[in-house]
């Protein structure tokens, strides 16, 4: 047991080294210095407090999405639609804010309602995927992907249609909400301790949900063998729907945070690809909740750190995406290699 864990760590370190190696080769091939690039990325994410706060701003939605995806992955479902669920969370939050724009209710209550609204919005969007899957026989990957496009189109429609700025509608989004609608931020920084706290609490809840509850165990049984789970007496399709609802609610919460703590309005790319990035994090941590925090933080740091690259080195900031992608591929590859290696060990 101990040995297998130890070897797992070694193989993952090799994967990390290989990923950095491949990205270095790419950089060398375009005559850029890898060490300089990595240094810049590190400085861009951890160099100063302001930058680290930015990393945390990205970390919050990423962690929430990952937490949600751990639930659907446990149920054996590929919830690609998580991206659209983030968007719908943001739309629903915006809708609640707009509804209460003129009201005299205390702002704290409105913020709470808006966040809850976002969770419900995300959950409903996820429920569509679930219903299509359970009752329509539409694979959740296709259903989710389709709904992602619909969600994006809906955002654009709202920004340029019913919710457009007075005068000329613009890609910069809807009219910003008043300051009291924002989750409180740390002084001079863009990070909200509330958002950070909520994200951390959520991942802890998901960890215990999957590790220690009957619900989690049943979910795993459904994910690993739908048919046997049914014969064991588990209401299988209901559990599939539950997992979609939970994931959708958490993705919606991520979207709500984007509106309530970061952008204070609806913008066209409100989800910023965190849904897809969350899928990568979930795969990278092999669906184990306990690793979600460090890996999501690492990915957020890569995203923010790479913003530095075009400014300092005239490199495209998509380098972080290249690094994240190769890292996932190498970790999966090394996991396969490790299993082969362990098998051989056992035989001799």
């Amino acid at each position, binding site marked *: 047991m101990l040995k297998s864990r130890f070897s797992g760590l070694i193989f993952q370190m090799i994967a990390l080294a290989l990923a950095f190696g491949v990205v270095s080769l790419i950089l060398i091939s375009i005559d850029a210095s890898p060490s300089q690039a990595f240094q810049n990325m590190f400085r861009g994410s951890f160099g100063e407090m302001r930058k680290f706060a930015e990393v945390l701003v990205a970390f919050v939605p990423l962690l929430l999405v990952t937490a949600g995806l751990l639930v659907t992955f446990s149920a054996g479902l590929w919830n690609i639609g998580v991206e659209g669920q983030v968007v719908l969370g943001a739309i629903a939050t915006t809708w609640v804010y707009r509804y209460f724009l003129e009201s005299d209710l205390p702002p704290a209550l409105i913020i709470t309602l808006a966040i809850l609204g976002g969770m419900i919005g995300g959950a409903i969007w996820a429920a569509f995927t679930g219903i299509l899957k359970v009752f329509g026989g539409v694979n959740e990957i296709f259903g989710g992907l389709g709904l992602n496009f619909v969600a994006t189109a809906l955002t654009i429609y709202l920004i340029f249609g019913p919710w457009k700025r007075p005068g000329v509608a613009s890609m910069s989004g809807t009219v910003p909400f008043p300051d009291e609608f924002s989750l409180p931020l740390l002084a001079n920084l863009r990070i909200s301790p509330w958002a950070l706290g909520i994200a951390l609490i959520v991942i802890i809840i998901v960890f215990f949900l999957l590790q*220690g*509850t009957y619900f989690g*165990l049943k979910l795993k049984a459904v994910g690993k063998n739908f*048919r*046997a789970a049914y*014969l064991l*007496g588990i209401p299988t399709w209901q559990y599939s729907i539950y997992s979609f609802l939970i994931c959708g609610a958490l993705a919606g919460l991520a979207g709500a945070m984007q509106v309530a703590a970061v952008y204070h309005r609806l913008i066209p790319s409100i989800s910023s690809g965190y849904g897809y990035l969350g899928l990568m994090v979930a795969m990278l941590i092999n669906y184990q909740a306990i690793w979600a925090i460090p890996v999501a933080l690492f990915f957020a740091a890569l995203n923010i750190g790479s913003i530095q690259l075009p400014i300092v080195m005239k490199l495209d900031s998509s380098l972080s995406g290249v690094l994240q992608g190769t890292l996932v591929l190498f970790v999966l590859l090394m996991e396969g290699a490790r299993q082969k290696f362990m098998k051989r060990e056992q035989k001799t």
Partner: protein
Amino acid sequence: MNVELKNINKHFGKVHANKNINLTIPSGSIQGILGENGAGKSTLMKVLSGFIHADSGSEILLDGTPVKMNSPANAIKYGIGMLHQDPLDFPPMKILDNFLLGMPSSFFPNRKEATQDFNLLAKEYGFSLDPENYVDSLTVGERQQLEIMRLLFLGVRLFILDEPTTGISTAQKEKLFTTLRKFPEQAMTVIFVSHKLEDVESLCDHVAVLRAGELVGELTPPYQTKKIIEMMFGKEVTLGERQSASVGEVVLSLHNVSLEDARLKIKNVNVEVREGEVIGLAGMEGSGQNLFMRACAGLVRPVGGKIQLKGQDLSGKTYHVFKKNGVSFLPAARLEEALVSGLTLTDHFVLAEEPRGIFIDRVAGGQLAEERIKSFNIRGTPHTPVESLSGGNQQRAELALLQNPLSLILLEHPTRGLDIESVIYIWGKLKERCKQNASIIFISSDLEEILQYSDRILVFFSGKISQPLEASKTSVEELGQLIGGKGWAEIGDTHA
């Protein structure tokens, strides 16, 4: 083809699966390999067919020449082909496409020519397979025939058959044996792996018996069953006395139930099952017994009629309602339908119990698992993932998952592929349930098992169901006839 195995050794970690096995199989003979589960039969066959490597020092000689095989494809080049217990074919494909697989032909196969070859070969062996049909429409027996044809066409000279008579009908078994008996005439060699004494006795020219990885002896006809059993188990085992349970009130009753699936129609069945009773379902694979059983479990919705459990009407209700009312269904496909790969034994026992609260009590779960593992004699620990258990232990685990109390236990092939000791153990556990007033309905293709353990027997023949036959008043001969569709007029059926 003359086969010599010299000093075959194989270790899996600490397990010594094959110990110094020396065996010569002369060309043109049918060699039986007997042994209980885990005796090392499969390992030896996998070594011979290139699936796994034996330890160094082991030698395989074909017609006197030492060979080294590193894959099944390589083994086929040497003329060695293996027919697996579950045919390795591709159900969604056409029979002809399956036939063409593994053929070292050009990129674009000549389908016309292949069809001709296929039909010629089928005619020679008396198989009636349509090359344009799809594989998933075939029975296990027909899929075997297809696989045999494929291997013949690839030029295989040594056939290894692993438990080929499990899951096929008596008629298909006869056809298989007729086919195999033709092989020696063409100097082909057959290795027949089984633990069915009767089959081995009627077919094989020589029998080698394995026990705990060692070759304990070789026998030639006439065979003495007692001797073989002694060699296999190291001691004599008997199936135990027949015992009829005292029969109580009606548990399950079917009134004019009609069932349908894509291939079969069963009309107006009337059956009653009483407390403590064991009902055996006999019939060729696919004669309606699975449909009948799944209807009793609520997994198939009847198109007409009424199903009552202890007087309560459950017609049209789902499996989960049946389950809540004390019905349990144990499917034959253990890892596909009954157990969840990737979860441990503890996880399974926890799942099968009624949940207490929201959080799982891991300590209690572990204790429960320890207890069940002990009382059901499962070789594993609470943390063992179910997929790494052997077949017999998976079957025991399935039984250990049964709740208490139960009204009705439905079992598909409860002892398929298990050795005699496991069979006796499992039936012991089931009979205990009968004493606690549970009724049992089980499907088996082993007539001996059906006669031995049932109180009454229902025979299925293409959607027809016989009147319940008293097990003590019938015989293998009568059942065999009914299964083959003869003698139905005399006994009558259950249809109104």
